[in-house]
């Protein structure tokens, strides 16, 4: 995305984006997930967000691990390189790819099994490094592909047809993210198109790792009304922390639309505008984020919005002090030292 400051582009949504492409051009292959799956809604939101931002798909990589959610990168951004890797290890593959090509945009899709169970280690280390990527957890509290076992984010006391009753407290993806020093922590609901799209755009503009925990009901194995990861529960219990608007760097901020708001400027010059709903919420206060998340967890309340954002922390790529040309694009002349250098070293051996 360009770093150009506010320009005169109209705010209305054009039929083609900044690159002159239609939304259809950002589609992937047809989905093979169950009809009504929350994951497919998320794929649609990704298509919309990336198209509206005018991102060049060829410079995007779509990363995933294993599971229903990890299949979805095949279903959006058909002109981006994609990598469906191994279970729970999408972060390490993305780390390698971003280290050698710093100009790419990484969009990672994972699930609650892929992230909170087998992949919890790599998930946390990716945040420790502040890897530049959007890390979407399509969270349904259940293992779908293996037909209905509990995941680590399943509610305590939840009953599943074959798995019985879950005796453990769920692992909260957002709290884990905060504890691992994530610089962007947000939650949304697959059924909330408007909020999810705004969050996706903000996550893409964030220069470090942006965690998006998206509650995405499993229509086949976990859509009982009692589950916090069901459509009915989500619709009834979703409490928005704030109303969100994302203003890309090429659009004017429409200050007039909002009163009582907080603005956070992202590294590329775009703005995240949060309108407060009742409570005073400061998304730069980490302790407040912990408390808010913990309270919501205890009350089994589906709280959505941006819990925490810290836009300034250097990202992983910046810490490596590499050439501005991506390493993978360097020539032999740039990567093979001369004969004299070898002679010099051997003289010391």
């Amino acid at each position, binding site marked *: 995305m360009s770093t150009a400051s506010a320009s005169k582009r109209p705010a209305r949504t054009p039929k083609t984006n900044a690159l002159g492409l239609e939304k259809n051009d950002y589609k992937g*292959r047809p989905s093979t997930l169950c009809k009504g799956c929350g994951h497919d809604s998320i794929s649609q939101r990704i298509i919309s967000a990336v198209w509206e931002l005018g991102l*060049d*798909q*060829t*410079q995007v*990589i779509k990363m995933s691990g294993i599971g229903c959610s990890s299949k979805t*990168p*095949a279903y959006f951004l*058909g*002109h*981006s*390189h*994609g*990598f*469906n*890797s*191994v279970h729970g*290890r999408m*972060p*390490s*593959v*993305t*780390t*390698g*790819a*971003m*280290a*050698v*090509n710093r*100009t*790419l945009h990484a969009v990672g899709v994972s699930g609650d099994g892929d992230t909170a169970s087998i992949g919890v*280690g*790599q998930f946390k*280390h990716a945040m420790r490094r502040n890897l530049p990527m959007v890390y979407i957890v399509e969270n349904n509290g259940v293992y779908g592909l293996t037909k209905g076992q509990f995941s680590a984010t399943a509610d305590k006391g939840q009953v599943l047809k074959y798995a019985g009753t879950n005796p453990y407290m769920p692992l909260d993806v957002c709290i884990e993210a905060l504890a691992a020093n994530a610089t962007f922590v947000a939650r949304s609901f697959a059924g909330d198109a408007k909020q999810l799209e705004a969050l996706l755009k903000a996550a893409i503009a964030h220069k470090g790792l942006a965690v998006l925990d998206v509650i995405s009901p499993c229509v086949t194995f976990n859509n009982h009304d009692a589950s916090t990861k069901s459509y009915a529960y989500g619709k009834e219990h979703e409490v928005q922390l704030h109303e969100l608007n994302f203003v890309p760097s090429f659009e004017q901020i429409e200050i007039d639309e909002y009163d009582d708001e907080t603005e956070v400027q992202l590294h590329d010059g775009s703005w995240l505008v949060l309108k407060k709903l009742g409570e005073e919420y400061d998304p730069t206060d980490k302790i407040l984020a912990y408390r808010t998340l913990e309270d919501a967890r205890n009350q089994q309340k589906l709280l959505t919005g941006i819990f925490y954002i810290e836009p300034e922390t250097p990202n992983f790529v910046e810490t*490596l*002090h*590499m*050439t*501005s040309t*991506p*390493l*993978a*694009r*360097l020539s*032999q002349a*740039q*990567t*093979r*030292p001369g*004969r004299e*250098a*070898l002679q010099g*070293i*051997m003289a*010391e*051996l």
Partner: protein
Amino acid sequence: MSVAVEEAKSKESRTAVVNDFNINVATVNGSGSQTSNNVLIRSLFKMGIPVTGKNLFPSNIQGLPTWYHVRLSKDGYLARRDGIEIMVCMNPATAIEDMEETLPGGLILYDEAIPVANHRKDVTYVAMPVKELVKAADLPFALRDYVANFVYVGVLAYLLDIDTDEIEAALDWNFNGKKKPIEMNLNMAQAAYNWAKENVDQECGYGVARMTGFNEGKIMTDGNTAAALGAIFNGVQFVAWYPITPSSSLAEAVNHYAPELRVDPETGKATFAVIQAEDELAAIGMVVGAGWAGARAMTATSGPGISLMAEFVGLAYFAEIPSVLWDIQRMGPSTGLPTRTSQGDILSTYFLSHGDTRHVLLFPATPAECFEMAGAAFDLAERLQTPVFVMSDLDLGMNISISDPFAYPAKPLDRGKVLLDDAFKEVGADWGRYKDDDGDGIPYRTIPGNSSMRAAYFTRGTGHNEYAVYSERAEDWEANLNRLTRKFETARTIVPQAVVVDDDATAKAATVGLISLGSNDPAVMEARDRLAAEGVNTAYLRLRALPIGQEVRDFINRYETVVVIESNNDGQLHYILQGEEPLAAKKLHSAAKCDGLPISARWITETVLDIVG
């Protein structure tokens, strides 16, 4: 090779053994003996003496016994040899056994603080007043233990007549010209030398003398350093690793050398990245990600790390992603003996990961070959679009040894069939990521960031057709695996060929063929001389890669008896070769040894004699 040994000048005794004995230095791990031993062996190297050092150290930071085994061989044999002529006892915990182990006629230097209960009549004892000498040196308390090891260096220098100028030069080299430690250690060695001169009879039966004909033009280094430099001079762009003995020093050597050698001259920015990962799973994941994105990427690990990497390696094999893995083998199974050498990962690595997988393995034998194969591994990985393993071991990786100098790469980097932006524009509309356009099983790949809208493909470990689209069709699956088989057949023709020794005097008369690999080389070469002396003439093939090429089949079929020599328990290479040449299976014999020590010529000789009856 013309070898000339100068007369040992100050030696009057004509019976002294010159440049042909073993020294074993027994110390406590963590006492700083690495410095004194390095200085000792480097001084001998610079005097032109063929010399080898094997560090036998425990898996421990401080306190357990450690030995440094130095062999001097005027004939140029660089393998470990059994038997100890000169024992240096600095460790009370092992002194009794160490002294017991010394050969009759040998010499025992020991710290006089160590009580010696039972004096043997057939050896010479020299009690060194270590504490006294250290005290006299008036050193800061914290440094005393470290400098104490230079007492035996000084005493040995006098007794054996080691050139003290070479000791000073070696110290200067070791401390990179830093005055203070050089002076401190040198003074200690000098004081011990003077003490020995006044108190000990120099006629101990052993001596060294400067010689020519062997070390000229050679370097002395370890395989891990050579591998790191090889990678740096062959365009490595990405290294991810997780610390594990005995491979850590490889990644650390990249960290040591690359910041100087691989920065952009104008901006001072790095043209490489080294990441210490959170575990081996992440290390290989990062390498696969970097290889996929178009970089020369590698990791270094050992057996336990290889086991952890198995799943990702299967993905890289099936999704066809270049990656290089250095396996510095140590003893297994399981945690095994982390600080002891072995070649026990050959079989499991050859077929690493579930399903039908086979990999390219390279076997370097010397530091120079580690340097060379670091480049070959990248070329092969990118040419074949697959993981390539370089199978080193603790002995080659961590012990310093005499080596040919590193050859500056003669060929440009082979980046394989990569379609970058311009090249991709020339490609027809029906480009398929996994299509075999050239019949060699190797498809054309694009890398992320290619600006063409049709260059993208979806990389997956699931079944796929030629266009990288998910497929469960039987025909697609079979066609894909058949292509991978074709690719493996291509690999046979481009991996480094075996070194065949079939035209020296003993080989010309050979009925027995020896096959071995890697760091066993010096022991095999020495064993061939010993066997010839016993009337058994041998030819020798040193395997440098798997899968085998035609030259290996020819060799196997040429001799009546073929013995496969390797440092593991089960005869892993033997097993693979029997499978490759099933009709020759009966005449392929296994000589496999795995006791944690580098293999010796004596053991090979005895084993081959047993086999040929």
